[in-house]
């Protein structure tokens, strides 16, 4: 008999039921789930029976299990163990751990055990992580986690929607409020040119300046474009303060009409169009626990440039990408949960390294580009495909049988 999976996502006041009249479809229920956790959810939905549990911890008695149809085969999966107030007592509990580098430091409140992320992870029957890097971080904290990445490459869709109404900006001019154009119009005006696409969230914004200045300093800036898709957080919501944040990072930088940025929340189909129109995918992140956008780009056969540290060490190499050199001295960020001596790992890319990588990218011929893309796609489609995911899930189920 296959296991039944119940996914929990609710935190804080979301646990108080409102009984609003709304569509209870699982995807709608999970609207607050992080992107990487949604990929786990989609993967499980493709191979197992999956439902939602709003407050798993209230079910503690055999009568409760019967009432809520939580049979012995139920596996409770949560993507927010630090906010999960208690597990589903008496059943198998799994945490999806994809944020162990960055999150721990801000989670600890002295004397408040529910805010201790590692305490919660230790209480789980299994911890799934998306990269060898995360696995290593957790091992150092005494937690044995399973390398079980989500099937990122399986869910690539190619249906597209137009970007004609999506505004974007050219870098330079006052406070980044330069000439406004739409993304579709931008691509029409740059036909034949190389477009480097990068996706950046609020937590990566420190890397914006070296990325842009490295691009401008490179030969790529003469004829190519750098398109920055910026989103404010993991829920994909943009905010009015993005202009100010970007301006603060790039203030004083020379005008460069070759750099374009867009901060609009796009649908999956619009993102597909963005990938489809771009030539190269660029990641300059200083630390990642999975880097799903990069894997998605590789699965599409796009050539990519990226550092090979942290999670990217699992799939980035000279053979499959242009590797961005990084400073391997980690930045001293004290991680309170893991102890005052423990530092969070960060490997920022420098302007010079990015400049070299951009130069290398524009010097590649079409054939080299397509072969590099094909080699990357072959790897990630195997490593992050549904077959690999199902094999890993079956192995996990064997371990709890």
């Amino acid at each position, binding site marked *: 008999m296959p296991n039944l999976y119940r996914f929990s996502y609710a935190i*804080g*006041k979301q*646990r*108080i*039921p*409102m*009984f609003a009249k709304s569509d209870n479809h699982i995807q709608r229920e999970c609207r607050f789930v992080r992107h990487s956790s949604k990929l786990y959810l989609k993967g499980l939905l493709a191979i197992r029976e999956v439902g939602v549990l*709003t*407050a798993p*911890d*209230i*079910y*503690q*008695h*055999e*009568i*409760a299990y*019967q*009432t*809520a149809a939580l049979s012995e085969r139920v596996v409770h999966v949560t993507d927010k163990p630090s906010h999960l*107030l*208690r*597990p589903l*007592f008496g059943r198998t509990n799994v945490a999806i751990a994809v944020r162990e580098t960055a999150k721990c430091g801000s989670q600890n409140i002295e*004397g*408040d*055990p*529910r805010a201790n992320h590692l305490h919660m992870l230790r*209480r789980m029957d299994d911890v799934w992580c998306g990269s060898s890097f995360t696995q290593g971080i957790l091992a150092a904290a005494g937690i044995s986690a399973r390398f079980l990445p989500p099937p990122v490459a399986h869910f690539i869709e190619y249906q597209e929607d137009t970007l004609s109404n999506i505004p974007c900006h050219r870098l330079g001019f006052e406070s980044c409020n330069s000439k406004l154009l739409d993304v579709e119009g931008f691509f029409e005006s740059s036909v034949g040119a190389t477009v480097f696409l990068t996706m950046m969230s609020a937590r990566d914004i420190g890397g914006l300046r070296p990325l842009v200045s490295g691009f401008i300093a490179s030969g790529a800036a003469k004829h190519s474009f750098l398109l920055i898709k910026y989103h404010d957080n993991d829920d994909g919501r943009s905010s009015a303060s993005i202009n100010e944040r970007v301006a603060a990072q790039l203030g004083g930088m020379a005008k460069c009409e070759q750099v374009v940025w867009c901060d609009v929340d796009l649908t999956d189909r619009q993102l597909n169009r963005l990938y489809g129109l771009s030539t190269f995918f660029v990641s300059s992140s200083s630390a990642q626990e999975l880097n799903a956008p990069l894997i998605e780009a590789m699965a599409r056969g796009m050539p990519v440039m990226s550092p090979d540290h942290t999670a990217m060490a699992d799939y980035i190499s000279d053979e499959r990408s242009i590797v961005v050199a990084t400073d391997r001295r980690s930045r001293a960020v004290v991680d309170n949960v893991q102890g005052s001596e423990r530092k969070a790992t960060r490997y920022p890319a420098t302007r010079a390294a990015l400049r070299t990588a951009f130069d290398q990218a524009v010097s590649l011929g079409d054939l080299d580009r397509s072969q590099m893309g094909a080699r990357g796609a072959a790897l990630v489609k195997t490593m992050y495909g549904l077959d690999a995911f199902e094999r890993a899930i079956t192995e996990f189920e064997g371990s709890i049988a």
Partner: protein
Amino acid sequence: MTGNWLLIVDVTPLWELHFSGISNVVYELTRRLRSEISTFEIHFSVFQKMVETDVVDRCILERSGRALRELFNDASPLISASEFGRNRAGQVAALYLHTRPETRSFDFEAQLYYDFSFLSVPESLSEEIIKYHLDGVSSQVHCNDIIFTISQSTSNDLWFYFDYPANKTEIALLGCQVSTQECVSFSRRVGERSIEPYFICIGTIEPRKNIRLILAWLAENPWVLGEFRFLFVGQNGWGESFDELIAEADLEFAVRAGRIVHTGYVTEAQKTALLLGAQGLIYASLFEGFGLPVLEAMALGVPIAASCSTSIPEVLGPDGVYFDPYSVASFDGAMQTLLAEREKSDTGGRRRKLANRARTFSYDKCYAVIMSRLAAEAS
């Protein structure tokens, strides 16, 4: 043996002017401490200050902390419990029936925990309350040699949050005191008159009690209001008020027509009387450390539709009608069961079983569990 031991019992909740909830539990245990023969030499403290037994006896007699307040208002200083213990030649144990200090003062220390709602359902409490309970909680827990909990559910939390070992935990299930005199008086008042049938929902109006679920179901099934009234017993606490919840569910018409009634606060005697006349108790809580209203209804043989959450199934057992507190459909199923049994006049069996089960819970047992474990540890 235990004859050499002195036991200081901290009964701070007796400070309350009107006993309810935790102060009621402490009242029941203190009453037994004063009347039962114990192998310990027992003394009492309040706010970690020693108080004479005659003051405690007055509190028990009056069911009020008025005597304690008079004592603390008196200018004469009270000796601290730790100093009192230090000056004793023999061994000294302490039993804290509610909160305790963060440091140890005695040879053996035990505490009774009711729930960890400030950790488990912080979304339904104010920040001030959470902060008050969080302050030093980990140190307090680990200062104890034994912890008594009022349910397995609270024990689960103790293990989950604090790694507290199971062999140092003892479950002392609560009892309840339903006034039979009140029941008789109620029956006499009603006489042969038929009462318009009603369901009763007991609890402070606060998010944790989840009355939204009941109101959402009533909004979907307004026909029920034609046959039954719904009484909500309990004062507005925090979160949305009763009126706000009614407005949210578009049920103002039912309140205006008297089909939904919010009584506000009622006395214990009034609550018992209202329970006795009800067709059933509806208890939709999202979290409980025990669930005393459920046990009180059981003792009166009142059918119960209850949430399957946390400790409630431990108390209600197999003869409750359960629902998932997150599902209107599940609640509908439970109510249909209760209504169908009433329709067929088939509630007698359930009522008897509930009353029989209620008799297995008692404060005598709760007291015995605590004192026998303390005696065993002391010996």
